[in-house]
């Protein structure tokens, strides 16, 4: 205590106050909407009471202060060796040492008193502090800092008529933000500590202890977060009414659960439209009563008829908690829920890798950049691209499940939101990889509320029912297969799977064990025009190494074999299972993939053409709505509730 007191002379206070005032002015720049935020302190029990009057081990400093807006994250120079505490000026405060009460109404006022200095971590939580409050006769202090890397602090109450207790250990107390908090019940994929097969667990002690706060949710219609408030100064049994407000101007109570999300009863209470009233409880080990409910994410980010959503990265709803105390008191806490788009997963096809998407502008941009509205991640299974689809899905080193799990963690960390599902954009066999994943036991798990990891699925050129061209390739002679294998494109398991009538296709298209599992999907069907067909047929006619690829002697080889097609996959296979017909769209002239030998006349489904023998970007304007990437973006912006656009297909 002596050492710490020595460091906290009034003169030093003045100097600190002077030094930090400019930092404070910078760090707490006004924001558009002020939001009172309360920080609650819970100290450790006093270890001694030299002046008597307290009970060692029983009394301690507790209290809170409120500032006009949340403290900035990293306040005081996080990341530096010696973060400098920054003076702040609460609009109100109330602390106690267990004997006396120190508030903004009875505290002594001077240039350096009451004195509040803090630093915050990168999450905005107070991590070091110096608080001194004096009344006419007493002083209360709590202090903690990093002293050469060691966290240490103490609480004390200077006796006049006060407690006179002190704690000298390095076990300082801690702060938490009092507001409507959102807790991700699935903080990591491996630690689903707040969910079980029935959803979020109804155990207040666990809900109270969780530190996995987030700022919002992905609008995937599946994600849930725990809504938690601290009823400071309240009592068990206080009634807390949570109300959900939308983002309209002026803000109004939500009237659409599908668009704004909705509450789910957790411990008690009945949901009535946009609100639920619950009873505050005091979980074991908690200092204050708390109240909980669950907020369920909207069905989708884009809302029908909303003009702003297609261009937005996020939107928000507000949760208001009105606390009605048993003693007649009342208070209101607010919290904003950021609603973001689900992450987008790109899945490539056979004999390919993630670079297949390199020219898929404007969704994919150079240098690992993407349309800023979307968080895009590419699954890459280049080591297994010729294997059976099942083998791809079950691989250890390139497991799509594991890649997506890592990407989901990155997404959640980037945006500080809860999320469990992706919007899938797939080309060719990538669609079958995705559908096969849905049949894997790992698809539906507790950590995605048993709803799987697919929010929406957009397929391009996917051979949902195989391709006769692949059958022909699979039946080609040994030299043809060997030559292709040496070129790096093995005619192996994947080719077998993509053949019409393969056991794999019978599995994914046949009756499933689960009759309830469906994927909400839309197909973009590429159709070659006559010029593209003829151009490639002329070239294929010269090929004799693999003579069985196209019907011999046919003058309309591709069309005789495939009907309308993208020259690889028939129209009927690309749209197989998509009903009604409005749930797929055709685009022409487009072929499956361009190359400079056989398929030279683009564009292809990946937005590429051939220029001077090289694969190049389709010169169509990026704002041309007819190119595939913009059709995909349109799909991502089409509400999942639009059943004229989205089909329910078998996985």
């Amino acid at each position, binding site marked *: 205590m002596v050492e710490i007191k020595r460091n906290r002379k009034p003169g030093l206070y003045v100097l600190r106050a002077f030094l930090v005032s400019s930092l404070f002015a910078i760090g707490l720049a006004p924001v558009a909407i002020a939001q009172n935020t309360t920080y609650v302190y819970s100290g450790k029990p006093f270890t001694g009471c030299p002046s008597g009057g307290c009970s060692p081990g029983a009394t301690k400093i507790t209290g809170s202060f409120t500032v006009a807006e949340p403290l900035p994250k990293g306040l005081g120079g996080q990341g530096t060796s010696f973060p400098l505490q920054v003076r702040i000026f609460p609009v109100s405060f109330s602390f106690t040492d267990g004997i006396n009460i120190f508030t903004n109404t009875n505290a002594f006022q001077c240039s350096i008193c009451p004195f509040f200095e803090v630093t915050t971590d990168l999450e905005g939580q107070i991590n070091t502090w110096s608080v001194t409050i004096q009344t006419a006769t007493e002083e209360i202090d709590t202090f903690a800092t990093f002293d050469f890397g060691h966290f240490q602090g103490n609480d004390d109450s200077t006796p006049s008529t006060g407690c006179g207790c002190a704690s000298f250990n390095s076990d300082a107390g801690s702060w938490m933000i009092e507001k409507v908090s959102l807790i991700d019940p699935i903080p990591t994929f491996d630690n689903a500590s707040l969910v*079980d097969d029935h959803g979020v667990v109804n155990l207040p002690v666990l809900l109270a202890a969780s530190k996995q706060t987030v700022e919002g949710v992905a609008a995937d219609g599946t994600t849930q977060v725990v809504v938690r408030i601290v009823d400071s100064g309240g009592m068990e049994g206080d009634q807390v009414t949570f109300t959900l407000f939308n983002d309209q101007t002026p803000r109004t109570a939500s009237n659409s659960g599908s668009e704004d999300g909705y509450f789910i009863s957790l411990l008690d209470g009945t949901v009535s439209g946009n609100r639920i009233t619950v009873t505050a409880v005091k979980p074991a080990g908690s200092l204050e009563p708390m109240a909980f409910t669950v907020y369920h994410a909207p069905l989708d980010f884009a809302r029908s008829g909303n003009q702003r959503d297609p261009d937005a990265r996020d939107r928000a709803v507000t949760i208001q908690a009105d606390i009605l105390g048993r003693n007649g008191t009342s208070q209101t806490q607010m919290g904003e829920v950021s609603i973001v788009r689900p992450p987008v997963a790109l899945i490539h096809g056979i004999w390919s890798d993630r670079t297949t998407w390199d020219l898929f502008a404007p969704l994919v941009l150079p240098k690992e950049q993407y349309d800023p509205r979307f968080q895009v991640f590419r699954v890459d299974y280049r080591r297994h691209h010729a294997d059976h689809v099942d083998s791809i899905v079950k691989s250890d080193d390139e497991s799509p499940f594991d890649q997506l799990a*890592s990407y989901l963690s990155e997404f959640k960390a980037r945006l500080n939101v809860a999320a469990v599902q992706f919007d899938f954009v797939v080309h060719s066999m990538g669609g079958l990889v995705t559908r096969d994943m849905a049949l894997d036991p790992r698809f539906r798990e507790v950590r995605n509320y048993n709803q799987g990891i697919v929010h929406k699925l957009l397929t391009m050129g996917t051979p949902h029912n195989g391709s006769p061209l692949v059958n022909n390739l699979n039946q080609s002679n040994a030299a043809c297969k060997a030559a292709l294998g040496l070129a790096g494109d093995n005619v192996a398991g994947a080719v077998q799977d993509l053949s019409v009538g393969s056991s794999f296709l019978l599995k994914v298209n046949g009756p499933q064990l689960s009759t309830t599992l469906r994927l909400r999907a839309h197909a973009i069907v590429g159709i070659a025009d006559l010029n593209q067909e003829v151009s490639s047929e002329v070239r294929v006619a010269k090929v004799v190494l693999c003579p069985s690829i196209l019907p011999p002697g046919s003058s309309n080889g591709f069309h005789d074999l495939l009907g309308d097609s993208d020259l690889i996959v028939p129209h009927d296979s690309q749209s197989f299972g998509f009903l009604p017909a409005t749930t797929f769209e055709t685009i022409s002239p487009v072929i499956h993939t361009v190359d400079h030998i056989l398929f030279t006349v683009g564009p292809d489904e990946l937005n590429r053409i051939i220029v001077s023998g090289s694969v190049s970007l389709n010169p169509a304007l990026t704002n041309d709505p007819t190119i595939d990437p913009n059709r995909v973006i349109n799909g991502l912006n089409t509400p999942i509730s639009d059943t004229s656009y989205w089909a329910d297909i078998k996985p």
Partner: protein
Amino acid sequence: MNDWSKISRGIYRAAPILAMVILTSGVTLGDPPITITSPTNGTKVTPGETLTIQVSTAPGTSFLAVQVIGENMGFAPPVSAPPYTCTLTVPSDVIGSRKLTALGLTSPGNGVFSPSVTIDSETAATATALFLNISQISFQRLGQQMPLNVTGSFDDGSSLDITGSSLISYNSADSTVAIVDGNGLVTGAGPGKTTVNVKYGNVSAQVQVSVPNSIRGDLNGDGRVDKDDLNIILAALNTFSTGPHDARDLNGDGIINALDARILVTLCTSQGCATH
């Protein structure tokens, strides 16, 4: 190069081979009947470069034609008579080691292949920045793997996938936490956090890797097992667990009791089970 483009390249370029039929004769067993003599193993080439490939045949052998097949590069035009000098252009997007194999066609649908020669395609441009497919890997379990994909931005304006380049290096700052192989495949090796560094030329990039501790006992999800977790069990002493997923019931006997508390103490990650 993508999926069907490669197959069509192979089909088209190989087509003339089968137009000529000459039976092979006099192959000596044990000797490679056909060999690539140039380039040799390890030869550096550049993307877009047209290679001249010399193929020799064993004495007494003859072929309908000789052709070179390049991994991810397609087929060189066939050569029907000695000297077998083939040309093949390395695609502009191919980076890293690739195999060249000579095919001696003996009859329609049949041939012999040479031992493969491995060349290394590396751009001469200078990398100015690296881009990774992910910035942090949060593994769920020990042994889990995640491939890194690296895109290089170069001073000639090109952007290339250099994941498999021989000039790239992957290093884990702590191999007890994560190991990374030469192809950028990261594997969670042990609990903790570390960094995998990717370096190419004078530019580098990092990815943070975290491997979870044993989740057992971490009841509040803060990545540690400590007194806070113990207090959660103590607060529920002698109550029934909520089911098989109740993490507090560490011994799975359906009751949260002192036995679970004793187990948790053994799982604490700090001395004396102290909070951090």
